[in-house]
């Protein structure tokens, strides 16, 4: 996986250097794919909204990607960027001006042609505070963002419609991640007339340019997507119809899959059934495993005694037996030694981290003046397997003399305690762990390890703030020249190694994704654990029982 990604990232860098990359001409389609058929997918939670400016959860992320398109997207099943609604793009030499040429003949589901005005409207809308978009912050590098976010302007001064098929976006600072931002759902293009027609209910009546159209939405029961016959990417999607049944417990979804009533359980294999499934060859055959851009970690509040002492934090890093924790969750993860997951560019392959060594940890603790240990609190989200993992951490800490009392609470309460400087000394991030929004190493820094996130209500729960590293991070992100991408990734690798010297976290594991598909579902495995079209790439999967 690692090898594969390094290659694709290099290919992506090459493509970026060329500045132009037609999407359809080079696209390799599955020669066995047959059009037609319909499938059933289940989810536990109701779908909240299908408005691309607002939707930000497990169920709707990939659905929105199938109803709408952005200027950029990724090769199916990979983290390789490619143009989507943009036919080509150019980046100025200083990396602050991006000019996108739109693909001709793209139509919204209402029949109207897509123009550059729509792209501008979309960006103005998503950054406008009235939209209340959880993704507005991603667009902070566009010129004029502060004015729009502050309410003193209605449109982004940096976004200009050059002609109906060309849009120019100027940035206030070079931003190496900008093409990834243009691939985020939040920048997926919406038609103004439909947004205005439905107002706040646009999320229930989505109209985009995507491969599917919403045909039915019965609240709390089901959503039906139908193939968009006018889709610009000819031949896609393969399926005629997808029915999403919501409100189905993962365990019930699995039982229904076994009976052939469901094609993919969207929430994956429930932990309680994992071993049973894996020990049955017939079922195991239908399991798909894939890496995800996720890290589970323990935070230590660096502003709170005794975690304000780096030696204490390093001792805790050495005390945790990560292999045992991974076993505890049936090996559904790989042990981690740094904040970045292995499939992320910038991951330091040679970095070894803190090896598990309780004796050394004890000695370090004694050096820090805590030979007899101390008492502290470990906050954890109260759903399985997190309390069990917290107990394992508690035992590991007890072995070096630290008595950690577990505070097992609802997710929102743990998040609130983390965002309070005097709230939580230690937090196990499980159930709330960081999954990257886009495949770039910078995405693991700002809100969770940078000074900007160490604010009341923020996500930097270790309250770690190293201004030198903040500076280095901005430097790295100002390297927009694609030819220097490797240099930039190395810089990021160094940043994370330096963070580990200060040890505000104990990176514990990187979760793997396991899902299942019915025998009739076909298409490459990586489409079912797509790292970007999370959880499934609906546009490219197909069924093998159509005539």
């Amino acid at each position: 996986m690692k090898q594969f990604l390094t290659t694709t990232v290099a290919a992506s860098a090459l493509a970026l250097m060329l500045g132009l990359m037609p999407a359809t001409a080079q696209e390799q389609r599955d020669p066995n794919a047959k059009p037609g058929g319909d499938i059933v997918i289940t989810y536990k939670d109701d779908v909240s909204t299908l408005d691309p400016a607002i939707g930000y959860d497990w169920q709707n992320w990939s659905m929105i990607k199938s109803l709408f398109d952005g200027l950029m997207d990724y090769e199916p099943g990979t983290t390789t960027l490619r143009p989507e609604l943009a036919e080509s793009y150019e980046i100025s030499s200083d990396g602050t001006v991006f000019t996108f040429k739109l693909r001709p003949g793209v139509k919204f589901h209402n029949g109207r042609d897509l123009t550059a005005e729509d792209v501008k409207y979309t960006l103005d809308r998503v950054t406008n505070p009235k939209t209340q978009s959880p993704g507005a912050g991603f667009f902070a590098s566009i010129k004029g963002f502060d004015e729009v976010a502050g309410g003193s302007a209605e449109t982004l001064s940096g976004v200009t419609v050059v002609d109906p098929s060309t849009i120019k976006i100027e940035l206030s600072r070079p931003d190496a991640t900008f093409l990834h931002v243009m691939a985020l759902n939040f920048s997926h293009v919406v038609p103004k007339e439909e947004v205005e027609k439905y107002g706040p209910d646009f999320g229930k009546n989505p109209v985009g340019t995507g491969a599917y159209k919403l045909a039915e939405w019965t609240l709390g029961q089901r959503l039906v997507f139908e193939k968009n016959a006018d889709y610009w990417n000819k031949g896609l999607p393969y399926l005629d119809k997808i029915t999403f049944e919501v409100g189905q417990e993962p365990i019930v979804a699995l039982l229904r899959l076994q009976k052939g009533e469901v094609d993919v359980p969207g929430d994956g294999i429930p932990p309680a059934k994992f071993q049973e499934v894996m020990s049955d060859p017939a079922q195991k055959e239908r399991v798909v495993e894939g890496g995800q851009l996720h890290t589970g970690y323990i935070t230590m509040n660096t502003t709170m005694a005794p975690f304000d002492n780096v030696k204490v934090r390093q001792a805790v890093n050495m005390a945790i037996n990560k292999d045992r924790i991974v076993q505890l969750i049936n090996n559904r993860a790989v042990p981690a030694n740094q904040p970045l997951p292995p499939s992320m560019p910038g991951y330091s392959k040679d970095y070894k981290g803190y090896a598990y060594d309780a004796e050394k940890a004890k000695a370090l603790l004694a050096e820090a003046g805590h030979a007899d240990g101390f008492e502290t609190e470990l906050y954890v989200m109260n759903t399985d397997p997190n309390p069990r993992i917290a107990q394992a951490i508690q035992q590991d800490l007890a072995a070096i003399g630290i008595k950690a009392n577990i505070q097992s609470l609802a997710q929102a309460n743990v998040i609130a305690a983390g965002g309070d400087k005097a709230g939580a000394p230690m937090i196990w991030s499980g159930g709330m762990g960081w999954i990257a929004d886009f495949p770039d190493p910078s995405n693991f820094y700002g809100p969770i390890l940078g000074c900007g996130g160490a604010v009341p209500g923020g996500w930097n729960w270790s309250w770690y703030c190293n201004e030198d590293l903040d500076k280095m991070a901005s430097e790295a992100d100002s390297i927009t020249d694609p030819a220097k991408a490797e240099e930039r990734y190395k810089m990021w690798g160094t940043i994370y190694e330096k963070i580990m010297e200060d040890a505000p976290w104990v990176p514990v594991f990187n979760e793997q994704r396991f899902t299942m598909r019915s025998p009739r579902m076909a298409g490459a495995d990586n489409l079912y654990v797509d790292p970007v079209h999370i959880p499934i790439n609906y546009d490219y999967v197909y069924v093998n029982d159509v005539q």
Partner: protein
Amino acid sequence: MIAYIGRRLIQSALILLGVSIITFALLYLLPADPVRQIAGRSATPQTVENIRQQLGLDQPFFVQYWRYLTNLLTGDLGRSYIQRSEVSELIVSRLPASLLLMLGAIFCELAIGLTMGLVAATKRGSATDQTLMLTSFVGVSAPQFVVGLLLLYVFAVRLGWFPIGGYGTWKHLVLPSLTLGVLGAGWYARMMRSSMIDVLRQDYIRTARAKGLRRGTILVRHALPNAILPVVAMIGIDIGIFMGGIVVVESVFGWPGIGQLAWQAIQRVDIPIIMGVTLVSACAIVLGNLLADIVAPFIDPRIKLR
């Protein structure tokens, strides 16, 4: 009678007002910030503050509550923070499913509970009586989550008689109704048994026996109608018990009712939905009780309204 209903309606309104204040205060005190949830992880502090102001969450408690209450009086339950839809629309779309489930559960608990109670009373002290009472005890104490999964596994997965969760046909209704009804059936069995034993001791039953009526006729024509009255009058009160149960049962069976809506909203700290569902449930409980009190004297003349 009308004065009584009027008085009870005023009392009900006061209860609902109290429920709304307590729920609103509890949610206000919750150590979780809904604005952070809406704003997402990448939000700047300015964005967070903007959203807080737009939602009026920067206002003091009483201002927020007063605004909620005045909107409520115009039928406006607000918009969901996460789904961004009208809460009233979300509740209305899910109410029929919950009501259907409740009707199914009432049918199950009466059919099972009354039959068990009747048989147990007529065979008082026998092994049958003891077995039935033990079963009712298990029914009352078994966690609904476990009962639900067990029924699903046996009757839907192994035997394939019913669909595995979902909504739509009468077959979908059977297992969730049964799960929800088992708890009530246990209570009804016990109540029916003691009520029946009570009635069987009455003079008119002895007279009927002395007249030489057959045992079956005595039970069905004389004892049952009298014994069943106090039991049936309890149905209104059941609504309150169901409101708690549907959260679990609807989640297990993927039943698209308001219990499932509430459970998802609680997990996401979607305060407008939690408030809306709580108020609608409180309304149902209050009205259920009121209905039970009004109906009771009609079916059992021994009860008088005062």
